[in-house]
């Protein structure tokens, strides 16, 4: 839908090939006395969908801006597609900032072409691609309309197309789902997957756990300007033991001594983490005492639970689990 092949341009001589599309080492960025980014090490594998997850004010945007070269770090160094000076690779990077911005009087296709031209795409080619993208997305009627006449969602789509019109090797999206309705969120997810299938590296920040869980191969959990966790979503979930949920007919009995110490009674069921020694000793006690097992489930913890465990409950409270909050935002 979006383009043929990514990274049509060749890498400048200054760039060195790397398994990582984005790297940052010991990055520090302070604003006055506030350390927005506090000693961050990050490495985004080439071709991956990588999520930077954290509550508002965690330092996600500052981290992305530092990696992109919009601001310089106070300490540490970064490399983008192998180049120490990120702007050298601008032609191969697409960036959608958190605070969306377009010239209100520009026509939709011109805005897309202009953003491509900033990244080295010839204007005529940009216009052709822009029209094709808008038509392919059911926005043919908006091609000639000035941005000020478009709805917020349509303007965001225009900006997103402007981010990828030059077919970059790396796409950086800062809170891309913010302000989109459920349908457009789905479309954006599909677009991200499509780009990733073409070999494009996607780095995005979000405060919505569900998007990261659905899309990302790797994530970094950021809180207080620091990376608290870096790895796959599976690794994050594996930080917690599986959760056991047990419902019995008998309320009391000798079998209760076999329950782990972290057991909590909630909504008529027992909840506890799967014991290190497995579930078998407890099962034996339940059967021997005829406790009457009504239901027993062992569930792998979700990313939200992992996030709570990693970043803390306070940070987790600022996060959004899913679509409810985003619909409100939209």
């Amino acid at each position, binding site marked *: 839908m979006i383009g043929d092949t990514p990274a049509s341009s060749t890498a400048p001589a200054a760039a060195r090939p790397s398994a990582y599309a984005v790297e940052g080492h010991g990055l520090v960025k302070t604003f006055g006395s506030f350390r927005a980014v506090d000693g961050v090490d990050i490495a985004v594998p080439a071709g991956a969908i990588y999520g930077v997850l954290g509550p508002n004010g965690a330092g996600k945007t500052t981290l992305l801006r530092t990696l992109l070269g919009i*601001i310089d770090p106070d300490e540490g160094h970064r490399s983008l597609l192998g180049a120490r000076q990120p702007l050298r690779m*601008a032609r191969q990077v697409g*960036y959608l*900032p958190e605070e969306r911005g377009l*010239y209100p009087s520009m026509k939709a296709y011109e805005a897309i072409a202009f*953003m491509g031209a900033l990244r080295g795409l010839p204007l005529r080619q940009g216009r052709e691609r822009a029209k094709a993208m808008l038509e392919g997305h059911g926005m043919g009627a908006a091609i000639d309309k000035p941005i000020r006449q478009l709805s917020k969602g349509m303007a965001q789509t225009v900006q997103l197309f402007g981010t990828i019109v030059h077919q970059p090797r790396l796409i950086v999206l800062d809170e891309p789902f913010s302000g989109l309705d459920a349908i457009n969120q789905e479309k954006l997810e599909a677009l991200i997957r499509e780009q990733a299938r073409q070999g494009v590296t996607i780095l995005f920040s979000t405060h919505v756990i569900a998007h990261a869980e659905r899309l990302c191969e790797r994530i970094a959990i950021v809180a207080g300007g620091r990376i608290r966790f870096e790895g796959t979503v599976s690794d994050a979930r594996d930080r917690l033991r599986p959760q056991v949920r047990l419902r019995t007919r008998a309320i009391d009995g000798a079998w209760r001594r076999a329950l782990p110490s972290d057991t909590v009674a909630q909504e008529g069921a027992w909840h506890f983490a799967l014991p290190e020694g497995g579930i078998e000793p407890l099962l034996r006690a339940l059967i021997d005492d005829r406790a009457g097992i009504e239901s027993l489930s062992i569930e792998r913890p979700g990313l939200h639970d992992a996030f709570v465990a990693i970043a803390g409950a306070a940070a987790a409270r600022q996060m959004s689990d899913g679509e409810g909050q985003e619909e409100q935002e939209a």
Partner: protein
Amino acid sequence: MQLWRAAFVIARRDFTAVVLSRTFILFLLGPLLPIVIGFAFGGLGEKISSTDLRPVVGVAMSAPDSATVLRAHDRLVARMGDQALPRLRRVSPTVSPRAQLARPDSEVVAILSGTLAHPVLTGKAGDLDILQGDISLLSTAALAERTLQFVTVTRNEVATSQGAQAQARLIIGRIAQVVMFFLTILLAGMILSNLVEEKTNKIIEILAAAVPIDAIFLGKLMAMLAMSFVGIAFWGGTAFAIFLLAGGQPTALPAPAIGWPIFLALAALYFAMAYTLLGSLFLGIGAQAATVREVQTLNMPITMGQMLIFFFASYAVDHMGSPAEIAACIFPFSSPFAMIARAAQDATLWPHLLALLWQAAFVAIIIRVGVLLFRRHVMQSGGRWWKTLFRPATG
């Protein structure tokens, strides 16, 4: 190269955004409005100023004396112009001047009575101060009516006069300075608010992520300069057309020392330099402002600064070769104005090449400082700005 390509992308966007907007028509027509209004109301204005505002003096002499005074008035006005003397009107000699001036319907400010040999002027002290000399002249001319002879001056023509040529070139230099100054003050001020749109619409983030900020500044300057040249071409073309329609002969104009073609080329280059020098400064200052209100507040002190520079350059034009003129040529902001005046009066070309290079270097330095301050204070990036002053603009 990447810098210039990116600057061109920004410039093209800004230029088309301005030139293709409806307000640009107003921008083009704005400076012509005073001219049109001047033409439309010029005749009336001239009439008001030449006829109605001159004081009227009543002549209350005997009939022969009054006639003699009026003839003398006509003779003098024919030589000196009708603005030189007060108007005269016969009034009755039988009523006392005091009584006539006291009447509510009196239209004269003073009354001339008595005889030609002993004229008496009656009026308020302030009016008498103004009129006494003129009326004395009139009376003298009237008294000498029969004996006054005009002396004919013999004409002795020459082809050239160095003094007249120098005077003409000085005037060309002054006019060029004034025109350049007004164009700069009218057009460069617009740059102050040039980055506000990008900042308020959050576009600056997209630009800063894609191109060096130097390219943003450079592109904006290029766009505004191109827009200014469109305006100047339109206004200049219109003015030249009016000049031709009014019967003006371009060949009759005195030539500047360096010749018209080079002078006009230098004028365009010096305007570009004056514009980009001030523009880069304005852009740097305006970029620090967060709101349009802040930009408006900055306008007045900046205009005063421009006036000072202009006065400096104006002073220099009368003192070719003096330390003040050389200083005005060297000081970057006054240099374009001083140098165009020099081009009108001196045919040497090489100082202009040197001056243009010198001015261009300062444009680059001012842009660079503006960019670094912008990165530091607006983007909150970078350390001490002077440490990166000469680092290539690659981000």
